[in-house]
């Protein structure tokens, strides 16, 4: 409960204080939930079950306000509550709308924490939607004449997806014995394959849009590109993890009978998305757009891994979710600083930025290397596991998806080259302490996970095992 209330209170404070807000304090506040997350870990028992920490009757006696915790949730909470302070810190250069963005970001943090902890289906949906609202307003502060169109497209896309999920959840709810949205009750509903496919399709749609998987991605690039930095960071760093988390936490357990039906489609689409995003990213000139497509590619690989239903795929996917969050926020932070310093983020207009700011250069390089999954950076173990799981599913698909390690090297290094190397008149303005702090945390994440990925794997292992058991009970296809 604390992890929802604290950011919310912080959000209110920032909203009330307005321009007088101290960003350092806001960042401190937004990192407070980490402490509670740490405490929550003590509630875990060895079984890895999803343990309710807070439970109260809500919309009806059976539709309850239930917050639960396990390793999976823990990982997502850590991700959220580490990244949000960084996003808040990074926002300092954004003078005009800063307090507004900070307040919205904090609100978002509360909602995201809710999404990851919600054990009640309706609650999950509500937090899911709630997380959409601040990001909508954050993206709305973008400049440009297409702002409304882009945000509307984004909102409609995700909203339609969420409505489909709602419909599926209600359907399940009506079939529960006790008319409850509780996770366990929803899971206990026996569905025949047809029903399961219908329900699964609805739930999946919401997640696929959010991730996004290939045919549902067209909101993404524009939104990432045009949104203010904190918006892009929230979207790319945390929000799309909601979709992946949702697949694992809600789709797999609730409609396991349909997995066999969707698996080939999902993996096919994901692999197509991996290549599609990578190939498009090869030629982008706008750095944010490039990162948007690279994210499309990377995240599709995670989705593919999850759908292989193998331990490597799922746990590697979870690892990569965390990693991708760190990396993409790093990339967006870098781009933001470049844009704020030079006034542009178009590759052709940049160059030679490496020469005057060493810390920036080192960090940029580090993030770039993490993104292209060089060993001993965080990108490697996850990508290795994902490709391996995909190989176990189908070697040819793994080969296709593996092309991403070539393409990602091409486009990321191209971005590094055209912005940092060569001769150029523009220069990066000196970094402020908050940026250096943000860099330091992210850099620690990149290298630390690169060396010790097992920490994250251990965190989620038991929870994944339980979900895997459910899937195999329904299908018997898990290896």
């Amino acid at each position, binding site marked *: 409960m604390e992890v929802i209330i604290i950011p919310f209170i912080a959000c209110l404070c920032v909203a009330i204080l307005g321009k007088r807000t101290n960003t350092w304090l806001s960042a401190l506040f937004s990192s407070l939930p980490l402490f509670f997350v740490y405490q929550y870990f003590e509630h875990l028992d060895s079984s890895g079950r999803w343990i309710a920490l807070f439970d109260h*009757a*809500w*919309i*009806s*006696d059976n*539709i309850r306000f239930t917050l639960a915790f396990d390793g999976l949730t823990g990982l997502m909470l850590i991700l959220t509550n580490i990244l949000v302070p960084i996003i808040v810190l990074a926002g300092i250069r954004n003078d005009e709308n800063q307090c507004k963005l900070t307040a919205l970001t904090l609100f978002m943090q509360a909602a995201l924490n809710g999404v990851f902890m919600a054990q009640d289906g*309706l609650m999950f*949906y*509500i*937090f899911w*939607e*709630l997380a*959409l*609202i601040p990001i909508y*307003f954050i993206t*709305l*502060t973008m400049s440009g004449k297409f*702002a*409304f169109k882009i945000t*509307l497209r984004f*909102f*409609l896309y995700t*909203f*339609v997806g969420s*409505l*489909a999920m*709602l*419909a599926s959840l*209600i*359907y399940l*709810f*009506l079939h529960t014995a006790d008319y409850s949205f509780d996770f366990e009750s929803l899971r206990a509903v026996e569905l025949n394959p047809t029903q399961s496919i219908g329900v699964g399709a609805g739930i999946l749609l919401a997640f696929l849009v959010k991730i996004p998987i290939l045919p549902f991605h067209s909101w993404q690039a524009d939104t990432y590109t045009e949104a203010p930095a904190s918006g892009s960071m929230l979207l790319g760093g945390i929000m799309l993890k909601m979709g992946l988390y949702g697949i694992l936490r809600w789709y797999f357990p609730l409609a396991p009978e349909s997995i066999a039906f969707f698996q080939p489609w999902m993996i096919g689409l994901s692999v197509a998305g991996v290549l599609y995003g990578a190939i498009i990213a090869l030629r982008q000139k706008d750095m944010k757009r490039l990162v948007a497509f690279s994210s499309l590619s990377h995240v599709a690989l995670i989705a593919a891994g999850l759908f292989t239903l193998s331990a490597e795929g799922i746990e590697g996917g979870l690892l990569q979710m965390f990693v991708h969050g760190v990396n993409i926020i790093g990339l967006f932070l870098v781009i933001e600083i470049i844009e704020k310093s030079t006034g542009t983020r178009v590759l052709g207009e940049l160059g030679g930025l490496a020469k005057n700011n060493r810390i920036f250069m080192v960090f940029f390089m580090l993030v770039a290397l993490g993104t292209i999954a060089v060993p001993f950076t965080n990108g490697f173990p996850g990508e290795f596991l994902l490709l391996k799981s995909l190989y176990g599913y189908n070697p040819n698909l793994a080969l296709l998806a593996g092309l991403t390690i070539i393409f990602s090297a091409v486009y990321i290094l191209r971005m590094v080259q055209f912005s940092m190397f060569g001769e150029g008149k523009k220069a990066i303005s000196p970094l402020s302490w908050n940026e250096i702090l943000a860099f330091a945390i992210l850099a620690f994440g990149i290298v630390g996970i690169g060396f010790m990925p097992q920490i994250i794997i251990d965190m989620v292992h038991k929870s994944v095992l339980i979900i895997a058991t459910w899937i195999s009970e329904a299908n018997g296809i898990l290896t």
Partner: protein
Amino acid sequence: MIAFFITFFGAVVLLFIGLNKRESSFSIFASGILFLSAFLCVATKFGWCNFGILESWVPTNMMQFGSEQLLFMGLLSFLTGFIILCFRESDIIGNDQLALMMFSLCGAYMMVSYQHIVVLFLGIEVLSIPLYVLAGSNKENIYSNEAALKYFLMGAFSTGIFLLGSAFIYGGTGYLELELMGIKPSFMHALEGMPIPVLINAGIILMSVGLLFKVSAAPFHFWAPDVYQGSPNRTTVFMATVVKISAFIALYRLMSTFGGIKSNWSGWISVLAIITILWGNLAAMIQQNVKRTLAYSSIAHAGYVLIFILIADGTNAWILWFYGLAYGIASILVFTISHQLYNTNKDDTFEAFNGLAKSSPIVALALVIGVLSLAGIPISAGFVGKFYLFSFAWQSYPILVCTGLLGSALGVAYYFKFIKHAFLKVGEKSPVIKDRGILIFLVLIILMAGVFPWILLRTFF
């Protein structure tokens, strides 16, 4: 019944003490009376006070004041009180207007509590006739005139249809009492030469068309956008909320009377619901006028509530109540802000909202929450209302629910226009927004009902 009396006599008193005077204190007096009557309704429901004597004046086969009716009356009275309170500064202010609105509310009470078709008819007329006047109360304004005339002509026309229907029902069943005519619609008095089911079916259709006209369900909604746009703001919001909700209650009670032959009418009501949802949402997308947009939005909402008519089984009236509350409060909120902006800019297109977020962020926030509630996005009351509605209808009417969800998605497109103009566009004037306290109170109601609906519902039902 006490609410009825208080409202009625309050209106009469208002009419006399305020002759030829125009003061906003009358509004406070009127809304005070309405809140009192709302409170008394609730108090009676809970048995805190008893006005059995008053009740005994009315034959039970004419009107009935069960707890359900009391809560509906309380809701209507509550909403009207807020309307009057929020529109104190209306440019068409006068005690006569307030009194007319309160008389109209009396009609709404009758529509809520009728047990006899005559009372329903009288209720509709008592509701409508003051409204005709109210719609035209901006005498110099040609739009207001046009709205009044349109509303009047079409209203009278639909009354005729309603009456023909009630005559058919009368002939088909032999009764005008709600309790009796619904019992065994298939056997009734034998009328030689007339196929009775035809008479009853036609009667049901004609009567409900009369009411569907009032709730502005497609294709009987054509008056709504024009009249909403032309009428003074206060009248518009009254029509959009109280009138619509009361007509729905009347329709709900009428249709559940014929619940035994549901298969006869569920089909076409479903079709109408689908048409209404789609038409309302689609047509709203290209509107530039705020009131017109809201009119179409109210049409769309009528479509959602038509789903409720289908699923009503006598025990779930609280869905309608909650939906009415959510929709009513949100509408009042949005209309109030739009009205106040209109007072500043004399502009009732979306342009009036330009730059609202800069000039008064709190109001902009209130606007956002109101709009989100209308759009049905969590954590607003609108979401919970829709959720109840859809989850109850999923089982029997999946297609309707899907249409409703689709409609909600479409609705986002135009509801977000408010946000677009308030947050993205730059405004020239900085409007003066009064009554922020009331706005915030409304917001709080929306949020409370959205976050803790169960507390609310468990208290009342």
